[in-house]
Each structure stands twice: as structure tokens, then as C-alpha cells.
């Protein structure tokens, strides 16, 4: 059964300056085939996704709600790419209702472009879905509003369970943007269990290695510079601590010896001499002990800092696919307010 995903939109945070002139951020203008990977959040091109419409022979095997759900899955994955800013779906539907746009009727590039201009977005993605028995088909188009052309078109046919079709929809979201789908999705398509790639570098892996040996986590993260800095720092502190400990041990043994001689002294001269030596050894012992303890604290602090650094500089965990994502915090553009917003979504499936 198709997952019933209900997005509860919570306009919780209003951020930044209202966007304008985002058409100039069109990737087409820069001559790039794929979307820029260096754009900041506010520079990302805005994409509106129209609800996929049902296609085929009436009565359709896919309901409007299911088509919308598939659109939402698709939109969620588009957000996961991180290369575009998604125009708020609910806001777009509202604008379409107000302006008389109907998804099922607005399928030609001209209508789509008009909608895009109305929404003031760089791209509009529309498409249709069809189900015949166990065969699913989806056609998607990405229209470049400024260039007034179809930038990319993708068709997917899937025979089998609906879960596999959802995976295809998720992969389609990457491909329509000209991006390579993540390995996780490709493995999912191949029927493999979602397992963690042992060669994949993780924050926890870096943290664990840095906990074992300072700098090891950074080396694991291919950051040898910082790795050797942490390792070197720890070695320096360790050597200093060892030297202090050696001094402490020597002073301790001296103290043992001189104090014993002091207690056994049977004339004032001897007693005075060994008292002085013993007191000096005692002072050395205390100083060295304080040094050792300070260096141990410094070493431990460096160790913990190295662990934190390894964790913080480790790769962020990849976002779960939309089908498994229970909650999400998305960055969308609200047409009414002319501002980007954070959208908090909860999947109720």
C-alpha cells in the first residue's frame, strides 16, 4: 500500500530577506548541465513541483490522493538532494487554486512556464503517473521557466510491488535534477537491504578511532594534517608528563632515602644535613607531582577535544530516504510571505 504521508506544515521560523530575482540563479544561465554544488542555501534555485496527475484509462488505478502522496515522496527526495530550494507545495496548490490552474489541465510547457513565472521560480517539475496491474509508469518534466524550455525529461517504468515504484520515484528525483542517485537508493532498487557500507566513513567511526588514539579519527577522515597535530600534541604532552613523572619518582626515592637517614641521624649535624636534603626532595616531589597531574589533565583535555573534533568534522549522516523518514525539517519558499521558511513535517504512516 502506498504510504500515506501527511505533511503538517508548520511555519515556525521566518528566515532571511525575501528572495527576489531568483531567475538569475538559473543554472542554465551559467551554462552548467547539473545544478551548482557550491551555491549557498539562499542562492539555490527554487523549484516548484506540481502534483503528478493520473494517467491511463479511467477509472484510474491510482487515486488523486495516491498521486499526491507520490508527489510528496518525490518532493521530499528533491529536498534531500540539497541542490534546490523547494517551493512550498501547499502554498503552490493554493496559488494554483486562486489563479485557476488545474494540474490535470496544465501539462503543456507553456502553461507550466506561466505557472513558473507566476510563482517566480527557476524550474517547475510536473509529471504523470499510471498504474496498470503491476506496472507503474511515471513521466516527469523539468521546465526551465526563464529559458522557456524543457530542461530535462525522464520516464520510468516499474513492474512489481509499489515499494519498488516508490524507490524509482526517489531515484527519479535525483535524475531529473541531473544528479547521481545515492548508492543507498541504487542498492535499494537492486533489492539489497539497506546496510551501512563498511567503507563509508562515519562520524561515529571517527569518534571511536579518536577515542582509541588521538588523531586516528582525523587520519581516518583523510585529514592527516589535523590527525598528526592531535597525535603530536598528545605525544608532546605525554613525553612531558613522563619526564615530570620521572622527576617525581626520583624525588620520591630521594625523599625516602634522605628521610630515613634523617630519622637515623644521631647528631645534630647529620640531622640538619639530611633534614635539608629531605625537605628539598619533598619540595621536588610535590612540584613534579603537580606537573604530572596538570599534564594529565591537559592530555585528557586534548584527548576529549580531539574526539569532539573528529566527531564534528566527520561526514554528516546521510538523510534517510523519504519513505523511511518520519520527520523532516525542510527549507521551502513561501510565495505569500515572499520569504524562505523552515517546514517541519511528520510522516504519519
Amino acid at each position, binding site marked *: 500500500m502506498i504510504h500515506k504521508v501527511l505533511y503538517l506544515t508548520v511555519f515556525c521560523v521566518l528566515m532571511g530577506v525575501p528572495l527576489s530575482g531568483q531567475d538569475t540563479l538559473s543554472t542554465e544561465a551559467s551554462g552548467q548541465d547539473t545544478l551548482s554544488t557550491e551555491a549557498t542555501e539562499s542562492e539555490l534555485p527554487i523549484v516548484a513541483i506540481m502534483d503528478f496527475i493520473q494517467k491511463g484509462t479511467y477509472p484510474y488505478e491510482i487515486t488523486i490522493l495516491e498521486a499526491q502522496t507520490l508527489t510528496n515522496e518525490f518532493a521530499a527526495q528533491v529536498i534531500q538532494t540539497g541542490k534546490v530550494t523547494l517551493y512550498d507545495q501547499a502554498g503552490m496548490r493554493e496559488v494554483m487554486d486562486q489563479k485557476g490552474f488545474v494540474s490535470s489541465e496544465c501539462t503543456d510547457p507553456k502553461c507550466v512556464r506561466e505557472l513558473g513565472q507566476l510563482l517566480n521560480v527557476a524550474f517547475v517539475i510536473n509529471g504523470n503517473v499510471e498504474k496498470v496491474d503491476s506496472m507503474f509508469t511515471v513521466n516527469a518534466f523539468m521546465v526551465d521557466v526563464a529559458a522557456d524550455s524543457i530542461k530535462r525529461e525522464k520516464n520510468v517504468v516499474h513492474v512489481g510491488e509499489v515499494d519498488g515504484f516508490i524507490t524509482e520515484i526517489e531515484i527519479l528525483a535525483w535524475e531529473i535534477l541531473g544528479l547521481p542517485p545515492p548508492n543507498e537508493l541504487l542498492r535499494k532498487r537492486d533489492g539489497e537491504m539497506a546496510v551501512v557500507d563498511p567503507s563509508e566513513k562515519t562520524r561515529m567511526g571517527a569518534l571511536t578511532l579518536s577515542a582509541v588514539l588521538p588523531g586516528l579519527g582525523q587520519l581516518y577522515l583523510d585529514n592527516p594534517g589535523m590527525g598528526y597535530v592531535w597525535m603530536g600534541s598528545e605525544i608532546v604532552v605525554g613525553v612531558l608528563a613522563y619526564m615530570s613523572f620521572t622527576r617525581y619518582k626520583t624525588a*620520591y626515592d630521594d625523599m625516602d632515602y634522605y628521610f630515613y637517614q634523617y630519622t637515623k641521624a644521631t*647528631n645534630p649535624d647529620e640531622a640538619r644535613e639530611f633534614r635539608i636534603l629531605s625537605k628539598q626532595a619533598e619540595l621536588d616531589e610535590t612540584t613534579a607531582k603537580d606537573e604530572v597531574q596538570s599534564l594529565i589533565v591537559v592530555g585528557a583535555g586534548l584527548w576529549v577535544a580531539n574526539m569532539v573534533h573528529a566527531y564534528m568534522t566527520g561526514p554528516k549522516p546521510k538523510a534517510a530516504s523519504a519513505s523511511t523518514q518520519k520527520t523532516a525539517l525542510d527549507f521551502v519558499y513561501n510565495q505569500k510571505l515572499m520569504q524562505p521558511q523552515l517546514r517541519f513535517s511528520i510522516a504519519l504512516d
Partner: protein
Amino acid sequence: MRWIKAQSLLLLFVLLGCQIEVHDATYDNPFDLDANKEKGIIPPALIFSPSRVKTSVGGSATMNIFALEVSGVGGVHAQVNYDATKLSVTSVTAGSFFSSTQSPLFMYEDNNGTLDVYVSYLGPEITVSGTGGIAVVVFNAKASGEAVVRYTAESELLGSNDVPIKLNGLGQGVVNAK
């Protein structure tokens, strides 16, 4: 995660457990003039060495009666008070301070809690100076607990021709029987 927690706990344990031991010495050698000064014992003085003796009930405790930093002494009278309920005197022998070509007169008298020790050269010519043992006293511990052994004000040093020399300090000793 469990491993990380275990390691964090280990690290914490190591840090807390890193209390490095240091000596806490008490400088109380009876020959230590500085330590004696802090106790108000200034030479010339009579002291016990060792100043603290541990023994068991029924066991013996040997204490030396010492003259500390004296000058021109021809005779000594050391009167020692002790707790007769806890200690008894087993033996008293002469120390080495007064040994020379001429044998000194040495005698003692134990009177149930008070021990008088006399050492003297016969004649005014010979005197001793410095620090040295006057007598070796062996006590027997009769009961458990600490028994204080101290010189009385009757103790005195005599110079040549029996001229008294002022004693500036009188030490004390402790026999601890368990």
C-alpha cells in the same frame, strides 16, 4: 556507543585515580636542632633517642638518654619520670659520652616511677662537650597504651668544679605498647 561509554568511564577513572602519592613527613628527630627549637628545646639539653618507641605488652623498649650540644660538662644528673603502671625499668647502662681514658662514676636509682642516673668524672680536669649518650635505659611495657617518659627539673649538668650549667631544654619520649 557502549564501548565509547566504557572508555569515557575508564578515562574518568584514570583521571580521578591519578592522585599521586607524596610523603607527609614529620621532622621530629630528637637531634634535629630546628625541630627541637619548634618544641622549645634549645641546647644545652637532655633528650631521649629515639623519642618514640613502639613495643608490645611485655616487650622491651630501649631509650637513650642524650646530652645535646653541651659544653664543658663534667657530670650529669638525669632524673626521669615514667608511668610506673605501664612501664618498669629493666636495665640501665652507661652511655659512651663519658667514656675516656678515665672511667667515670656511673650509678642509677630506680624508685617506682622515678629513675635517677648519675654520671660524673672524678676530678675537675676532665669534661666533655658536644652531643652524646649518657645512659641506655631498657623499659618493660607492663600495660598497653602510651607512656610518656620525661626529665624532671631536678636534672642538671655540672661543669668543672661542680658548677651547675643551665639546661635550656628537656626532651621527652613516648613508649607505645600495643
